[in-house]
């Protein structure tokens, strides 16, 4: 079922999702989002703890997705075929 585009979307969103889970776990084990509100920059004023967790997770996900997207883009637009691609296969 996966088309090239569908696979690309999965390759961008999925690894970044896994990375965001790990990053959130580590980050929020050490940092209480309420601390960002009480002692952080003005940007975080009024930030609820639950919102802090969610926004933190989405932030990590977005950063990871950008990295994944660049990787996928570079692979898809490479001139040289990857080693495991058959030479006669249309690009």
């Amino acid at each position, binding site marked *: 079922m996966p088309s090239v585009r569908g*696979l690309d979307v999965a390759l961008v969103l*999925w690894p970044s999702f*896994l990375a965001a889970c790990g990053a959130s776990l580590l980050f929020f084990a*050490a940092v209480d989002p309420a601390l960002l509100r009480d002692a952080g920059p003005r940007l975080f004023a009024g930030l609820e703890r*639950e*919102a802090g967790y*969610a926004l933190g997770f989405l932030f990590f996900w977005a950063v990871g997705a950008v990295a994944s997207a660049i990787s996928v883009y570079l692979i898809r637009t490479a001139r040289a075929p990857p080693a*495991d691609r*058959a030479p006669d296969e249309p690009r």
Partner: protein
Amino acid sequence: MKTARVSTLPSSASPGAFYAAAPKIYPREINGRFTRLRKAAVVVLLGLFYGLAWLNWNGHQALLFDLPARKFHIFGLTLWPQDFLYLALLLIIAALSLFFFTALAGRLWCGYACPQTVWTELFVWIEQWTEGQRLQRMKLDRAPWTASKLLRKGSKHLLWLALALFTGFTFVGYFMPIRSLGAQIAMLSLGPWPSFWIFLYAFATYGNAGFLREQVCKYMCPYARFQSAMFDADTLVISYDEKRGEPRGARRRGSAARSLGLGDCIDCTMCVQACPTGIDIRHGLQYECIACGACIDACDDVMDKMGTARGLIRYTTEHALHGERTRIVRTRLVVYAALISTALGALGFLLLTRVPLILDVIRDRNALYREVHGARIENAYTLKMINLDDGPHRYRLTADGMPGLQLIAPAGEISLPPGSVNTLAARLEAPGEIAGGVHHIVLTLAAIDGSGVVVHENTRFIGPTP
């Protein structure tokens, strides 16, 4: 990685198959030993998932990773963010166990315990119930849209959505108290973030178990790609017995296969139809195989009907297939087992020696010391105490480490409710003639209610330079 043994390339003949649209897979429903085992695993695991969230323990939810309160309740144990080490150790133990069981018996995790497998199984049951058996489902998908098709498809998606939403609700119920979460939903007063998480998890369940299914294993799962690194020739794998099966071919029931020049495989393709990932196990071990055993059940059934021995497709090892001895105890397994035992031992030791009390001592920043009552020296401190335990405790503070040291405040007993933080000012005095210079002292906070909880904290007592 041992790519020679388990190919990580797409098994299809065309190398371009990775980019082509793969046909929808309609796994045939079968019955047998491994199917029953998988169904039992689904019932137990999902029963635990949906049920444990509602279990209470000592007046609070037994299993609650309370993110809003930043406290983890695991039955009688309450863990705080400071206890992150326990969680890390638990994750290490889980990963090592996965390695151990993979080396021992292949992809047990994938076939029986992975949430992807378990929820897919549940969603397929709903699909079978609303749309019928494999051939009926294929026919229904080809048929034009009629009221009956709309009803069948519509009810399937409604049930899927309801189940997915309930799953999302249960999932979030492990991170904030599920009863109050349920009450908030009932009163339509749920905040935006819990709603967001419920819908996100529901969407993921609906998509992964309803639509993506085997594609998650084939295209998205990292474990599927590297699990072969844990395999060796003594690992239990599901394998087609090529020597016994080939040359395959159709024949009449009861005919003597060998006299026809045939092996035991009658090429009925039941094993292919039963496969949830749509592979042909007769091509050998492939990374798409999640080791669910559906092909074994399908083939055993056919072998029974043909009157031949079961096990043309079976759990076996590479050594056994080649007529060699299978060694269960081997270096790889011993190493994994030793690592697991070490991590378990460390976790057990840390949990047993864990003191559910934190004492932080901060010296007064304004003055090093104060002269009081003429010849006496006073030092001031700020104490921060956290009772990490599940119950309330009463404590008493004492100070030692230099002669004549006297605790002025807090003199009485200190009560702390469970999970509470208390900040107190403390004052210590010592006679002026012995207080000169810097003295290393110890503050001790000990429970006086017989619970044996005690912590020591080092600090300094400073007097005028002699």
